């Protein structure tokens, strides 16, 4: 129980759950926060990349001499100049930093340039001449798996297959009274973090170097740079620069620009800064995977699910990157928070010559959740049941709590509570779609979506699920905290500060948490999977416990009480029996220092080991779960196919609130980003080239598009995070687009199986039901 955790390390009362000022807000709001593009050093050079303009080709010849001859150019390097391994892949060694013989995607790097000025560097990049013999490309993941498709890599285009097979599917299929089938085509998404990718590499001889980079995972960058330069990890120091948004786009990708800048710094002996122009950033960096999901789901005559078959193909793009790991999450998330006796899920990952798929908030789950929620509404319609009632009949709960992988959830399972909370607050069932839709162009409706989110890393990544913290009590009672998980806007520094203050009983304003740096803490894995506050918080609690083993005896001595009776809170220590007799913690800190007792403590956390069989997909892929339900209220202009999301009600099973503003900020931001993906954001690909690499043609939501967001939080005991908290970054995103889709479908009365729900998609789905169909299609009304 989470309160027990609280008692173990301090007091129940404290900053937890409050709305105090964020640690980083004041500097950011007055422009003092130094992002990497704001840093410059004497003698610093500017880097640029020469990249391939086509998606599939053989490299016949590469001539860098015209680039070298330009004024201000200090270095033009190719693959031959790499001292270590020419390998950028985070899991599979299938991606070179600089290509030598084969181009597999638009944006593959041919050469890297350093020059005195950025303009000179990019001019030199354009002057690199490559003779490329174009090869046929594969641009559809399903086609990539067909016989005869040109293989991108020696092992063929099928990168991996994941499955979940449980229950007697044949028998359950016979039991089903209603079976629905559908094929969903779910598009990808650009992260559109406001700060483009960037890094600064600072060499020290050819012995070691520092890389300052905008990233989520400094330890990934460290290992990539060490590999490419052929250095030990200890010779590469990675400091996370304040990071202007990540959303997964700065998980694995920053290793690539960092390797390029480091290579140039290594060769020139000068600091080298590489900042991506927006268009290049959008073309080169990873994207949310486009997927095709096929469903066959059945339910018995009482409207209870019997079986679910899901067949998903994910477009990995030209290189594996994190695609297999993304597919792992998509695979086990394909069924949702429902009790289904028999499941047969297959998830295949295919190479194509498209953009390169990677981590993006939700990590494969949003696509399959969009599909499972579409199918649930389809089934409800077949039964003529309210979609909320149909879900209620099938949700997991404390009695039926075995997930699709056979994992028995620890109670409380709050799916029904979260569904009820969201739908009640949203005024479900809302306006009758047909009512005002008969005449004018506007149709109004509500739509619902609910998801089960596996917290933290999947079983396949559990070796990375550990984290490190250092807590240093200063002699004046203030506290320095270092953690290995990063701040990218989500509020991790603030969460860490609150957790440390709560655990040590000090005021939040005396705690400073500094940006991660690989020389201050041990490898803490990536800041992904909504694990930031969880993993850093648990390590901080461990460090605080160790520090208090030294602090509490001193307090007991000064207070004249037993060690077990020492209480810390609000900057003071007191004996449990005499709360009025308080001693400032600053006094304790001074005493600790005067006695020459170590005021620094390290903390460590690792998730619980669990069993999961990848061959069958059975077992416990995640340690624990959360549930999220969003209800969207939309207005659809049936003539123009325009969707306006008016409001979203978001109910979340959060365990415990650490910082209320940051939590709400995650939900509001996740809702709006999810809405953008659902209705407007579309990667327009032309033979692997992104045809809309800018914010004029790739539309992310503006202030004018923002819906009202109502937040309902359900706190509970019994979860494993710091003070019971569960991650919120991803669950805040996942259900939104599905809820919007279901609202639009209810409003229009036609199924829509393609995302985004842009006007062409909607008009296409309406077909003869379009208000002006008789004019458009020449048929009679």
């Amino acid at each position: 129980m989470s309160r027990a955790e609280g008692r173990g390390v301090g007091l129940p009362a404290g900053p937890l759950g409050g709305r105090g000022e964020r640690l980083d807000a004041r500097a950011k709001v007055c422009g003092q926060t130094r992002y990497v593009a704001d840093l410059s050093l004497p003698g610093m050079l500017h880097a640029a990349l020469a990249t391939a303009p086509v998606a599939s080709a053989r490299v016949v010849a590469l001539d860098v001499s015209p680039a070298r001859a330009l004024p201000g150019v200090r270095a033009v390097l190719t693959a031959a100049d790499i001292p270590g391994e020419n390998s950028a892949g985070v899991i599979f060694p299938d991606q070179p930093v600089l290509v030598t013989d084969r181009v597999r995607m638009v944006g593959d790097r041919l050469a890297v340039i350093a020059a005195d000025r950025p303009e000179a560097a990019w001019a030199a990049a354009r002057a690199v001449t490559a003779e490329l013999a174009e090869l046929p490309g594969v641009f559809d993941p399903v086609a990539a798996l067909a016989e005869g498709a040109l293989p991108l890599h020696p092992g063929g285009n099928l990168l991996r297959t994941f499955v979940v097979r449980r229950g007697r599917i044949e028998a359950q299929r016979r039991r089903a009274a209603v079976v629905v089938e559908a094929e969903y085509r779910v598009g990808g998404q650009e992260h559109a973090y406001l700060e483009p990718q960037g890094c600064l590499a600072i060499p020290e001889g050819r012995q070691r170097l520092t890389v300052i980079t905008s990233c989520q995972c400094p330890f990934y960058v460290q290992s990539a740079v060490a590999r490419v330069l052929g250095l030990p990890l200890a010779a590469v120091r990675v400091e996370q620069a304040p990071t202007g948004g990540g959303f997964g786009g700065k998980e694995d990708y920053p290793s690539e620009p960092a390797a390029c800048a480091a290579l140039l710094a290594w060769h020139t002996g000068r600091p080298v800064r590489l900042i991506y122009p927006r268009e290049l950033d959008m073309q080169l960096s990873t994207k949310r995977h486009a997927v095709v999901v096929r469903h066959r789901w059945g339910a018995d005559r009482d409207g209870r699910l019997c079986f679910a078959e899901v067949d998903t193909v994910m477009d990995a793009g030209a290189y594996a990157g994190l695609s297999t790991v993304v597919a792992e999450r998509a695979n086990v998330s394909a069924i949702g928070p429902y009790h289904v006796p028999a499941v047969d899920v297959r998830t295949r990952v295919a190479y194509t010559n498209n953009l390169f798929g990677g981590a993006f908030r939700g990590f494969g789950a949003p696509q399959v959740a969009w599909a499972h929620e579409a199918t649930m509404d389809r089934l409800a319609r077949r039964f003529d049941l309210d979609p909320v009632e149909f879900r209620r009949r099938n949700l997991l709960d404390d009695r039926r709590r075995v997930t699709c992988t056979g994992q028995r959830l620890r109670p409380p399972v709050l799916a029904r509570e979260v569904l009820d909370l969201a739908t009640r607050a949203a005024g479900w069932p809302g306006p009758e779609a047909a009512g005002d839709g008969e005449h004018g162009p506007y149709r109004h409706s509500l739509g619902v979506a609910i998801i089960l989110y596996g917290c933290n890393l999947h079983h396949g990544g559990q070796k990375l699920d550990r984290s490190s913290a250092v807590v240093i009590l200063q002699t004046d009672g203030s506290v320095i905290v270092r953690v290995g998980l990063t701040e990218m806007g989500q509020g991790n520094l603030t969460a860490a500060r609150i957790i440390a203050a709560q655990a040590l009983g000090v005021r939040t304003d005396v705690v400073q948490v500094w940006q991660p740096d690989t020389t201050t803490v041990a490898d803490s894995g990536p800041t992904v999977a909504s694990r930031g506050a969880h993993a850093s918080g648990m390590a901080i609690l461990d460090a605080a416990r160790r520090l208090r083993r030294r602090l509490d005896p001193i307090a007991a001595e000064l207070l004249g009480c037993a060690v077990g009776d020492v209480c810390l809170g609000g900057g003071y220590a007191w004996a449990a029996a005499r709360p009025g007799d308080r001693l400032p913690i600053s006094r304790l800190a001074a005493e600790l220092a005067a006695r020459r007792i170590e005021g620094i403590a390290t903390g460590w956390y690792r998730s619980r080991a669990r069993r999961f069989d990848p061959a069958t997909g059975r077992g416990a892929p995640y340690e624990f779960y959360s549930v999220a339900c969003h209800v969207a209220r939309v207005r659809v202009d049936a003539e123009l196919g325009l969707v306006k999301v008016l409001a979203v009600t978001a109910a979340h099973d959060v365990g415990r609130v650490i910082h209320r503003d940051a939590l709400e900020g995650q939900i509001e931001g996740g809702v709006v980003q999810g809405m953008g993906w659902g209705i407007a954001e579309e990667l327009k690909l032309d033979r692997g080239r992104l045809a809309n690499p800018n914010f004029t043609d790739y539309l992310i939501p503006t202030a004018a598009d923002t819906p009202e967001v109502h937040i309902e939080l359900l706190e509970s005991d019994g979860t494993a995070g710091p003070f019971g908290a569960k991650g919120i970054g991803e669950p805040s995103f996942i259900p939104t687009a599905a809820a919007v889709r279901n609202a639009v479908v209810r409003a229009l009365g036609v199924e829509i199986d393609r995302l985004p729900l842009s006007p062409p998609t909607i008009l296409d789905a309406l077909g003869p039901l379009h208000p002006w169909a008789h004019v458009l299609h020449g048929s009679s009304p």
Partner: protein
Amino acid sequence: MGEQVSVTLRLNGEERTFRVPAGRRLLDLLREDAGLTGTKEGCGAGECGACMVLLDDRPATSCLVLAASCDGHAVVTVEGLGAGRGDLHPFQEALVRAGGVQCGFCTPGVAVTGAAILAVGGAARAGAARLLSGNLCRCTGYIKIFTALEEAEGERHEPR
């Protein structure tokens, strides 16, 4: 580098003269020549608003403005919004209080636009959404930015 021109600006209330290449963007003058890196470059194409400054009291995307065309004009950047010496503009204070800051990269531009909205008498929520639509933010969903604007607007009308 091409022809050099002399540009005199009233920059954050102080008269400053710069010699810059004729093609220099106002954004680069601010960030590189004046050392004011609070103004950010998010897209370089006038789409995102991270480089918003006040040019003669009106919001302008400094990535699309030639420095030379600002000769004799007044420019206020995020660093100059407060009354000086580290003071924050009421909207900046409200952004901090309302939790309207996340990654912070759009924040300087948002602060500048918000200050301009308040200077002309503020706006109701619907109007504010439209006026802020030139500043993209990918983190907050804009909601706490609206709250901050409303709070700062409310304060202006409260008697001191």
